[in-house]
């Protein structure tokens, strides 16, 4: 079920909210968790019974392994380590199988189509797999939240209670399909809170606001941008020249579309969870306002970045530090295992997580090298001198200007169905075709206006979490500088005026609600 589906909005979610409220009042927390687990299965089964069974299998396997990890005494370190890596291997192999089997089989038969979108990937598999991998590590480390949340596993009642709690956490429908990827230490304390499951006015207000903003971003902005973007990329894919305006509009349009689509989903996830009494971690913090690639990845798909950093970057970096200190005597070269290698691996894994495509491969390489170049530049004395001579505002503005166009190009590559498509698009963008101005008409100018209107929203307005900052809308993973000038000072408040504005956004959303296009990240 999609968050934008009227069946979800007008039937499923209201029933869940009422059900949770009643169960919490009359039967307690365990009943609420059981109900949420069942509701999550109903939410998910729309994509196929086989996918649901697959998810349940994954949940059972990980839960069993986590129970063994918790049950084994520390003295059996080897066994515990073996069990842990078995679980990680299970999770990773499931991911690799579904994301790469099509590619591997086709490649082995010589008919390689290095293209994503050709694999039937179970919806949400990446997100619930990552979440469970993190959980397994927490169980391995005997994290207090894991031990406390699962409770005593003695007896059938204890085991079933522990399982339902775990399953409710993993399958919690607001975050099940496209994240955010939640750590148990963020979820468990809220379940133990006395207010969990009670339908409270403050939660309802902030939750509804997040929900409507997310809907508006997806249904009104992203889906209308798609109507501009898709023909542009399809033309480029067919080898047809675009005029220069269409080419730039398509590239910028996709950059905006992906942001509004994905972050809209995250906003809706946070809104739905909040109404049910759970605050989820923030996944997007105005990434299009970033002034560097390092800044961008602190703001874009934050919960995935932190998982990759935890499992990939940090271990490789630690290994690299040890290797460099013992094996490499020439100082500048030490940065290779310490910084460069972890970054390259990190970005390549993130890129190839999206699928087996040459465009993703290149996207990851570019981002890795870009990040390295930026990191190294910031180490130079010239940079430090320049930094001391310039204001933060100047650096921000310059950084944003320098950062945006290369990032737009990177995401155009990400969207392209092949390198030749990107080549065609770039030819049109950089006037390398015969008639770059041919066919520029009112429609092209109008489309460009709409795309840059959408970009202006990203650049000049506060994001929904800045707007609602006084109400702690989500868990902040990083600290961001608040916008405090102009429109960025705007703050939300649960009053009639904001109610009317939000209702207007809801009406605009409902106007388009019947289109039901899928979310871009559903395929990942």
């Amino acid at each position, binding site marked *: 079920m999609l968050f934008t*589906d*009227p*069946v979800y909005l*007008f*039937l499923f979610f209201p029933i869940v909210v009422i059900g949770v*409220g009643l169960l919490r*009042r009359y039967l307690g927390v365990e009943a609420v968790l059981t109900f949420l687990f069942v509701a999550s299965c109903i939410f998910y089964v729309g994509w196929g019974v086989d996918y649901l069974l697959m998810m349940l299998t994954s949940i059972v396997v990980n839960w069993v392994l986590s129970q063994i990890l918790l049950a084994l005494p520390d003295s059996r370190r080897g066994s515990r380590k073996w069990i842990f890596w078995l679980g990680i291997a299970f999770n990773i192999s499931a991911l690799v199988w579904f994301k790469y089997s099509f590619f591997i089989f086709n490649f082995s038969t010589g008919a390689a*189509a290095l*293209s994503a*979108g*050709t694999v039937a990937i179970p919806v949400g598999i990446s997100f619930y797999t990552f979440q469970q991998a993190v959980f397994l590590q927490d169980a391995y480390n005997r994290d207090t939240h894991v031990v406390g949340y699962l409770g005593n596993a003695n007896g059938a009642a204890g085991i079933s209670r522990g399982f339902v709690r775990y399953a409710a956490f993993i399958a919690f429908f607001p975050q099940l399909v496209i994240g955010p990827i939640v*750590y148990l*230490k*963020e979820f468990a304390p809220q379940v133990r*809170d006395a*207010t969990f499951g*009670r*339908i*409270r*006015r*403050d*939660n*309802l*207000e*902030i939750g*509804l*606001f997040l929900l*409507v903003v997310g809907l508006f971003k997806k249904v009104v902005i992203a889906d209308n941008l798609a109507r501009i973007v898709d023909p542009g990329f399809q033309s480029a894919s*067919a*080898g*047809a*020249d675009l005029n220069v305006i269409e080419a730039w509009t398509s590239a910028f349009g996709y950059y905006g579309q992906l942001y509004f689509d994905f972050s809209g989903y995250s906003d809706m996830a946070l809104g739905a969870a909040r109404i049910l009494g759970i*605050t989820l971690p923030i996944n997007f913090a105005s990434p299009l306002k970033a002034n560097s690639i390092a800044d961008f990845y602190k703001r874009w798909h934050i919960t995935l970045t932190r998982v990759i950093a935890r499992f990939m970057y940090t271990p490789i970096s630690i290994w690299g530090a040890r290797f460099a200190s013992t094996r490499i005597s020439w100082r500048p070269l030490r940065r290779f295992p310490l910084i460069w290698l972890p970054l390259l691996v990190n970005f390549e894994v993130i890129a190839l997580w999206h699928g087996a495509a040459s465009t993703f491969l290149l996207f990851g390489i570019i981002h890795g090298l870009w990040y390295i170049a930026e990191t190294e530049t910031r180490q130079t004395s010239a940079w430090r001198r320049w930094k001391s001579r310039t204001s933060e505002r100047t650096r921000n503005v310059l950084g944003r200007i320098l950062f945006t166009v290369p990032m737009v190009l990177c995401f155009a590559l990400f969207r392209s*169905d*092949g390198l030749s498509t990107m080549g065609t698009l770039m030819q049109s963008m950089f006037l390398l075709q*015969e*008639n770059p101005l*041919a*066919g520029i008409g009112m429609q092209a100018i109008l489309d460009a206006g709409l795309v840059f209107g959408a970009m202006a929203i990203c650049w000049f307005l506060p994001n929904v979490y800045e707007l609602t900052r*006084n*109400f*702690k809308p989500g*868990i*902040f*993973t990083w600290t961001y500088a608040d916008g405090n000038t102009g429109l960025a000072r705007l703050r939300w408040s*649960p*009053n*009639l005026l*904001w*109610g*009317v504005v*939000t*209702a207007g956004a809801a009406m605009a959303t*409902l*106007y388009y*609600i*019947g289109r*039901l*296009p*899928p979310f871009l990240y559903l395929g990942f």
Partner: protein
Amino acid sequence: MNDVPDTPATEQHVDTGLSVLRSMFVAPLIAVFGFFWIATVAAIAVDPLDLYEWGTPPKLLPDYSVHKGRSMFSAAARTDVDILLIGSSTVAAITSGQLEEEFGVDKAFNFSITGPRPADRRMILAQVAEHSPAERVIVSFDWSFALPADYAHPAVPTFMFDDNIFNDLRLASPMVIGLTWQKMLGRPVGLSGWDYASTMPGDRRRYRRFQERMAREAHRPLPEIEYPAPGATDVSCSDYPLVSEILPELVDGLTSRGKAVDFIIPPYSLRLYRTWRSRTDEAALKVRPFLARQLAIRRCLVEALGSHDKVRIFAFDNETWITGDLANYRDEAHLHEPEVYSFMVSSMAEGRNRLTADNFDEYAATLIANVAGSTQNPAHDEDSER
């Protein structure tokens, strides 16, 4: 990483239960969502699209609409016409007027939607078999019949035709709500038609760009492909259950109600057969190798229905003045020339260009030879403005 945040608002609002609805912020939202809820339930109760037993068919105004196609499924199947064309974008430009004039009937209707897939075809044909008063049904037999039978277009409203009434909440749209209102007021309900001419500027642009591109690539050799043997005997129609099993059942449903059925194979440019493999979308990959699979499903169609006395199959692929001249196309698959459509419709009306079991091998051999021979792009008039 933060632990659970404490919410400052906790201290300000402690309302729980139904009292939460007293919020001045929530009230306008409840009004909007409530209106939508009521309007949707009303749409189901009033049933302006005639989806349920209690509905009545809306009137379908002339010509077709690809934009409103999903809401028109039901109405298209019920509309009172003599000829109903169930097509895709490749025959979308055939006008009602052309059909009426050439077939000599009072009323014809072209219901073509963009990118239909097998499951969508089955749904609409089942609806047509059950409800349509049309005497003749024309079905465009395009490449997508080579896809798996359960393949559906995501934008096609399968939920309208299943037994689950809850998912019909998706029906809600300003148009359906408007129709509901019209019907509640006792006014006749007519789904607004759409004149194909309104998309002509866009098609002209596409045409011009395609021609410019072809001019640039005129001397570039076309990619080589593997050619199937003309009299391929290794084609197993059981690999194409949609064509060999499901389609005959649907056709029986139509012919048993006295309808004649024509299949029209849209004439793609010869070039398309050579360049198809550059397409990497999921559907395109599933029908590779394109030429072999297209010939296979056409052979299976002829085998399954070619001898049916109320069924005719038409193909124009070997009219090389059409398929060999890219000046007729706005892209490699879609014709642009109205004259070509007129020729196709008149051929059908007069029974020319039929594909039968007797001439299929010759047809296949000629098509393969033509595709193999199309080693360079045909010349065309760069200045042509259509």
